[in-house]
């Protein structure tokens, strides 16, 4: 597809959400006025339940936000896959399960019982929350909790130009150093930035905190070394497990 190719049909873009906070689809539109106007000129938003009434039969690009927690959601997701040329996982919940991973630490029955009490029987959920690639084939990923709007814009622009969108392969440390931050470990705290995929510009460390790992693991994480540095920092085994729990405990990358 080439830009300015006359009045060809604009690619149809759809947004879908499953178990999530819906922050990523809102952040996808956290662009400058001009960027949004450019986007609306370049694509046709054909389905976006949150901001739009009406739907469509098939989609060129489907952005899917959220994890899969129920069989009916898995069915709906498969249907979306059928009708989409390209499926992109939008955000950590779709990509790696997001914070929903934490629910997997407790058996589903017990979790429902704890929350809904006697009414637990009315709810039917999967044993574990799944990232979407556990249910369907996913073409691309825009990671993060929430996503980085600039990365979203770049991915869309790349796809429209027929260019393969690419994620950074290096860990957060690279961008953290570029930002001139003092290492979290030097402040006496801990961080999973050394094994987490970059692309966020180390936003959490820059804002005074540490990396939780929301963008998932790098391709070849040295987990043993990460364990050792956490151990060196004085963490107990339980604390080290906790560091890996929030974002690294479900889906294909599960530690």
């Amino acid at each position: 597809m080439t830009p300015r190719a006359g009045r060809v049909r604009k690619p149809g873009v759809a947004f879908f959400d499953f178990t999530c906070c819906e922050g990523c689809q809102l952040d996808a539109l956290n662009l400058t006025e001009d960027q949004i106007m450019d986007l609306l000129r370049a694509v046709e938003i054909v389905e976006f339940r949150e901001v739009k009434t009406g739907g469509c039969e098939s989609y060129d690009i489907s952005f899917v936000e959220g994890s899969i927690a129920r069989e009916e959601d898995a069915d709906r997701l498969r249907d979306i896959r059928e009708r989409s040329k390209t499926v992109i996982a939008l955000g950590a919940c779709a990509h790696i399960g997001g914070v929903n991973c934490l629910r997997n630490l407790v058996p589903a029955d017990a979790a429902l019982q704890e929350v809904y009490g006697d009414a637990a029987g009315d709810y039917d959920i999967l044993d574990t929350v799944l990232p979407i690639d556990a249910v369907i084939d996913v073409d691309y990923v825009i990671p993060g909790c929430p996503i980085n709007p600039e990365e979203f814009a770049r991915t869309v622009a790349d796809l429209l130009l027929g260019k393969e969108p690419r994620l950074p392969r290096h860990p957060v440390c690279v961008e953290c150093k570029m930002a001139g931050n003092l290492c979290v470990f030097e402040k006496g705290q801990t961080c999973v930035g050394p094994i987490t995929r970059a692309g966020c510009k180390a936003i959490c460390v820059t804002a005074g905190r540490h990396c939780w790992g929301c963008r998932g693991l790098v391709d070849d994480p040295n987990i043993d070394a990460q364990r050792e540095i956490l151990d060196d920092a004085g963490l107990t085994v339980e604390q080290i497990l906790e560091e890996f729990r929030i974002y690294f405990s479900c889906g294909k990358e599960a530690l």
Partner: protein
Amino acid sequence: MRAYDILIIDGEPIVRESIREWLARAGYNVEAVGSVDDALEAASEHEIHVAVADHRPDNAGAIDMLCRVKSEHPKITTVLIASQPSHTVEEAAAQACEVDHVLRPFPPDRLERLIRETMRSIHAEREGPVGVGLAPEPLAEVVEPRETFVLSSVALKALFDSLAASNRVFAVVEREGKYSYQAVADFAELSLDFDTTLLPPTRFLFPPRETLLDLRLGASPAAEPVVSEEASVLFGVHPYDLRAIELLDEVFMGQQPDPNYIARRRNTILIGIECLRPSATAFAPSMDADVVESGFDLMLAPVNGDFAVIVGTERGSKILQGRDGIRAPTDAEIAALSAQREAASKRYRVQLSVSRARLPRLLEDYYDDPYWGDRSRTCLSCGSCVMVCPTCFCFDVADQVDLDLSTARRVRRWDGCMLSDFALVASGENFRATREDRFRHRMFRKGKYLVERYGIVGCVGCGRCTTACLPRIASPAEAWNEIAEIDRAERRRTRTLRGKADSYVPHMATLKRVAPLTEREKVFELRLPRDQEVGHQPGQFVMVSVPGIGEAPISIASSPTRRGSIELAIRDTGNVTHAMHGLAPGAVLGVRGPFGNGFPLEALEWRDLILIAGGIGLFPLRSLIQYVADRRDRFGDVTILYGARSPEERVFTVDLAEWSRREDLTLRQTVDQGSEAWGGHVGVITTLIPSIVIQPAKTMAVVVGPPVMYRFVIGELKKKGLADDQIAVSLERHMKCGTGKCGHCQINGIYACQDGPVFTLEELNVLQEAVA
């Protein structure tokens, strides 16, 4: 005239043809000749880039042949392939003429690599800069000789203000005890007394991200260069960082000049400041980067409350022109400057144990050593080491398309060879796929490749990578030192006792020195014949024998870092020791060993240490204290507690005095009973412990002393929050064989002579007999 990439000169047809075939398969045009006359003829008829000769007994004239080719055709790069011993060949080649490179025959890809690099630089030279309007030229007129003036701090502030009035000024600012370069408008905000900054100032010349081109897409594409001409001042740059800028100048302003770098460099005024407070991980003097003579416009140094300023360039001179409060330095100030520079150079804790010049050769010899794999096991491939490095300049370039799909920017951003995808190509092949490959590459690049390519060392010893590396493996000095140590050990291998089969036959050692420590104890210095080393670890012991009297286990009181001899401290208590007390220098003694496990160095490294000795427990512990003092950069805070019955019964008082003088060790002493002359602490050793401040998570304690001492000392240490695996003790047991057989030293199921004498409490918890 035909152009050959490579000319092979070798009298032996089989060798000649096999090299030719191999290089031809690699894609080069190769000519092979059998004599120097044919070589000279080929060189005058064809254009030849590289001449190769193999140095072997049957091709003895190789050096001469290359020399003749070189003398008549100086542009040809000459390469001598030399099997060992390469050092002598290399020297011969260097003496005879200028053979450009001497290579070992293995691994064979090295020749290919060298030829590839040579060809590349020849192409670059021939084609010259493409599409770049800027030719390399000097930046600012260098001033000779350097003149020194003195400015009052008021005058320095005025100088800053005048620079800040018309330029962006970047200077060092302190935040939570760490320093970084920030845009500074107020002189009061900046610091000139800092150890080192988080990121080097090179980022103002070569920023983390920059746009190189504005692109227009579509039917009529276009590219506009984006070059910033904004003027700035770097106010307060340490010499090692100036040295790094020198390398960047060579890289970006030499062949294929980089317009973005050049524009920034030209528009940046560099004001240096001498580094008087080196960071704990720095080793700039080893890299010749603690003091620089050029590379700055002005260089500052504090002197007696004022500032000395050295003028480096015309531009610097102009900045000073017509300013108030400038005067010539006094003789006293000149003396003070050199004295403080001298003192500063002594404050570096890390040193290279091998000469810089030897590094390239040394590294080459150990390319395939398992060290690289072991050392890089914990590498996170996080890139921190290269991101904070002032001499790293690798980058990646990518187009960033705007959502209007008609404009884009070509953006350059820092990249690094330690990142897993750095050498990944589109086909999916990764040329440095393992941590080991990448780790070794970085150490080679810093210590060898850059030196060979640019003639400037690729590391300036700033120590930033050491600090930034979480698994603490990034220090080039450490890696190089360890390779040098492997090399020394390799050469010593046949000359130490360690590694030789255990036997009952003692090695005969000569007593070099005997000195009294107290009334009952003496120290004995023993030397093995033919400069052999015992090859021990701190905490190990040897079996010492006096023929006819017997054999006794004795701890080694000196560190293996002190070479040439070992020291044994001995109390006159049994037959053997009594006999020894009677010996004089020159006497010959039997030595077997070393035996035992020694102190757990792996567990002690990088931790804060509390080393506790009671009485003659200091004998074995001294070997560890010496070791720690000699490898000080590998340990955190070190506190030594020593207790004796009375001031007179203290041993190694000379050492005690030295340790107490050292700023990087804390020594506290106590005696059970004081005397009139004793001005120090009185009380049992446990009374020293409550007052020391420790961080339990990163501390290890080692305790050596009489059995009665252990229980109480351990109790106090536990109160401080230390766990059982953080406390190590050395146990004394009766020993006869030293080889785990005779049974005397057995504690439950284990033998102290083999599995001990050092144990952590955790290990001892299962041994009922061990409780001291």
